[in-house]
């Protein structure tokens, strides 16, 4: 993930440098005036998806939607490992539930010991990405798992195995 950050910064810097070096309208079809030059420079500074803008972070739900959510059978999700961005195991999915507010939560047996001897924590559907037979915690870092309260499962509806939820995709 750190490498990806460096690559994004580098690509933005390269785009900025390229924009600053544009010398003629032939080289940059949109560059016809000083105002347009500023627009090109500004555009070069915007990360490709806007997802790394720390001043105005994209809401988690919007990031979820940008990751092409796909139908997944709940029964196929139970038991999957949940990994952090370094591919270390945070825990294993025990249940998928719907809260009274209609939110979907993955109940993960979390442990700081690669999933062993854990406690139950609730993870929002939108924070996870599916990579084949594993889930990646894209928007909930390990520190939030450690700080999350123990899940007691009151007033929720466990989803049956043949239910379908829309899970975002990941490429970690």
């Amino acid at each position: 993930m750190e490498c990806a950050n460096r690559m994004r910064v580098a690509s933005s810097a390269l785009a900025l440098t390229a924009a600053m070096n544009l010398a003629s309208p032939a080289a940059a079809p949109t560059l016809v005036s000083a105002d347009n030059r500023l627009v090109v420079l500004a555009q070069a500074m915007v990360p490709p998806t806007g997802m790394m803008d720390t001043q105005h972070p994209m809401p988690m739900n919007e990031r979820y939607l940008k990751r092409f959510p796909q139908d997944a059978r709940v029964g196929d999700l139970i038991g999957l490992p949940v990994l952090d961005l370094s591919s270390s195991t945070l825990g294993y999915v025990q249940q998928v539930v719907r809260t009274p507010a209609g939110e979907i939560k993955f109940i993960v047996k979390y442990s700081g010991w690669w999933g062993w001897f854990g406690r139950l924590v609730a993870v929002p559907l939108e924070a996870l990405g599916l990579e084949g037979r594993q889930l990646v915690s894209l928007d909930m870092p390990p520190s939030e798992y450690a700080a999350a309260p123990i899940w007691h499962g009151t007033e929720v509806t466990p989803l049956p195995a043949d239910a379908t939820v829309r899970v975002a995709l990941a490429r970690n």
Partner: protein
Amino acid sequence: MSIRIRTASLFRPPAWGDCTVIKESRSLVEDFNRRGVLRGGLTLGALTLLTGCDVSENESVQNGLRAVSSWNDGVQAAIFRPNHLAPTFSPSQVVKPPRFNAYYDIEEVKPIDGATWKLELAGLIKNKRPWTAQQIYELPEQELIIRHICVEGWDYIGQWSGPNLRAFLTGIGADLTARYVYFICNDDFTESIDMPSALHPQTILATKYAGAVLTDPFGYPLRLRTAVKLGYKNAKWIRAIEVTNTFRPTFWSKQGENWFAGI
């Protein structure tokens, strides 16, 4: 409890040689991630096999690596069995949805408008008229439930269906004695396969996954799916196919990945 004293390996050299190669490869090692380790490991590992070369000379190293890769291609082509079938699996083993991969992250996938998309044809083909998605859907389908194997070290069982590539090439009057089938994709990705692999019974142009039309991240409307190549050879979001005798470097071969990539 006794303490085991570690003795030096019998194969340890008496003195280290030129460490320039280690210094030059330091950036590869420091930029540590899974893909980097595979690439870096390949480079460092191959360097140890370069006898008679000055391994501190980058051009020599690269030439040596290219020579080894070409040798690998030749060996793989020689042992390829054009009618030997890869193992198939049951529908209950299919992973749904499949695992996404590309040379960029999921957020950067650019969906194709299937209504306006056309498959362009070029090269040694008699009938080069473009094909719409609907026309391709109307062709007889072949289903494959096979193992997708990625060079990164993961795999899954997938279920793809679509027209058999050999049947498609025959129908459009392609020269089946040509050497390569070249794929150009909507995201500027390019890939090519040898003709014997293109004609293999388990090579199709996939339009569906698990019985449903491919979705955007998985190559809609058309992708290659062959049981005889590593995952990265299975081009997604195909927009043009060319049959040719001329080899052109492809996206991954330009970056040093093995071109034949047979399994």
